[in-house]
């Protein structure tokens, strides 16, 4: 592994793969499968305080789910003797799946979070050695009324406010968005304006099937949200949401990613419907807004535009931090598409993987080339 290499962490239903490329991102070397046979629903890199750590959730249908990590790019993995994410006995809940792993803020280098099914948030303050359920959410009075979506009752999204230390958002299918402003002690639903198609009440306080929420760290009060039908933007930290599905062929979809250097640039991948979770018209198109959701335009160069029935799941899209930014997504049919120019053009990086569940991009040490003012090319 060379400094400056981009590494895509790809979780699949049959293990994890690491795709490595130099910063030119022209050719990808595939390593893996790691954790072969286990479903890897979540991956994350942790480079705080000099770490070179990669976390993965490893779930066996038979033997349960644990969090494991590697510090040597997959050569060796931790293998916790006891399951490290467990519900307390009095909750009467049992872990089914770990859907999300997120590093804490830079000034909390030993803090990590994970979101799980059944919907709950766990926190570690010792670098991932031990994990504890966040009680304010575990004991939330809404819990009995949350109901499982198609993927189960999962807490799949964790967004940390980069400025306000005690503020955090989570998203639950189906529970909706919840925000804490006191470090997790209390949680308030933040779903005003988000429509529900599957309940008689179309704008309930909670119960939305939110698929993904993203935020740019330079503008933390602005959030974008891909709903189970609906694309939304909030300018007030989730207090209210406005429909911004202008120009997409369908506002149903799962993944959403924000450009690393431009808070107005967001990517989605529309699917036809919740009945037919494939790209509309068999055309695999990423849609990008360059103006914070006022308009969306298709990105098709290099993507199959005929008989493409690839489904892309909620965590299977990611960006890197280079300039120009790389954008990546994996499909349930085992393809990994990569763009090295902010989405203007795409290449099939690798084919034949097991169904892809999650993708994250990390830059190996010494390769960070952040440029906060950089903007993507393309017509605005």
């Amino acid at each position, binding site marked *: 592994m060379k400094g400056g290499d981009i590494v895509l962490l790809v979780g699949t239903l049959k293990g994890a793969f690491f795709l490595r490329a130099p910063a030119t991102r022209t050719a990808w070397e595939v390593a893996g499968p790691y954790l072969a046979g286990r479903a890897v629903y979540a991956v994350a890199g942790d480079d705080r305080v000099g770490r070179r750590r990669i976390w993965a959730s490893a779930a066996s249908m038979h*033997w349960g789910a644990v969090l494991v990590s590697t510090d040597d790019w997959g050569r060796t993995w931790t293998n916790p003797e006891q399951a490290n994410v467990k519900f307390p*006995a009095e909750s009467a809940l049992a872990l089914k799946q770990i859907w999300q792993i997120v590093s804490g803020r830079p000034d909390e280098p030993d803090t990590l979070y994970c979101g799980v099914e059944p919907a709950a948030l766990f926190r570690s303050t010792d670098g991932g050695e031990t994990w504890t359920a966040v009680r304010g959410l575990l004991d939330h009075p809404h819990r009995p009324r949350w109901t499982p979506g198609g993927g189960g009752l999962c807490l799949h999204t964790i967004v940390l406010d980069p400025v306000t230390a005690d503020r955090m958002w989570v998203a639950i299918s189906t529970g909706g968005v919840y925000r804490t402003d006191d470090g997790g002690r209390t949680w308030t639903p933040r779903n005003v304006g988000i429509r529900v198609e599957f309940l008689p009440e179309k704008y309930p306080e909670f119960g939305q099937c939110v698929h993904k929420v993203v935020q740019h760290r330079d503008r933390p009060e602005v959030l974008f949200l891909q709903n189970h039908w609906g694309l939304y933007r909030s300018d007030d930290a989730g207090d209210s949401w406005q429909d911004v599905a202008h120009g997409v062929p369908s506002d149903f979809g799962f993944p959403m990613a924000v450009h690393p250097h431009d808070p107005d640039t967001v990517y989605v991948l529309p699917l036809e419907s919740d009945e037919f979770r494939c790209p509309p018209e068999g055309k695999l198109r990423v849609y990008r807004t360059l103006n914070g959701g006022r308009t969306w335009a298709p990105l098709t160069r290099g993507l199959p535009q005929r008989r493409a029935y690839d489904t892309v799941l909620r965590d299977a899209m990611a960006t890197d931090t280079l300039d120009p930014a790389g954008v990546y997504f994996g499909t349930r049919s085992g393809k990994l598409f990569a763009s090295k120019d902010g989405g203007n053009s795409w290449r099939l990086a690798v084919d034949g993987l097991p169904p892809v569940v999650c993708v994250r991009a990390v830059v190996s040490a010494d390769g960070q080339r952040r440029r906060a003012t950089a903007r993507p090319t393309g017509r605005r």
Partner: protein
Amino acid sequence: MTRVTFLIPTALRPLTEGRARLDVDLPRSPPSLGEALDALWAMCPAMRDRVLTEQGDIRPHVNIFVGTESSQWIGGLATPVPDGAEISILPAVSGG
């Protein structure tokens, strides 16, 4: 004193130093399956969380047989285990 033998599935043998069979001696006669499993956890602590959920239930896709009978049909963890019995821990036929 009751002696039972656990038959360990391949996937869990890294937790038993590769052994496929483990003999366990229990003071009560007959012990329950739950008591026999507790004795197994005492020998191989890492195995417990693989076989049971944190609530102490046998995982949904794991089957435990006492002899040739699945414990789920003959009393679950309360199933009495006779002296000399073989207890098989097996992954269920499931997957995808």
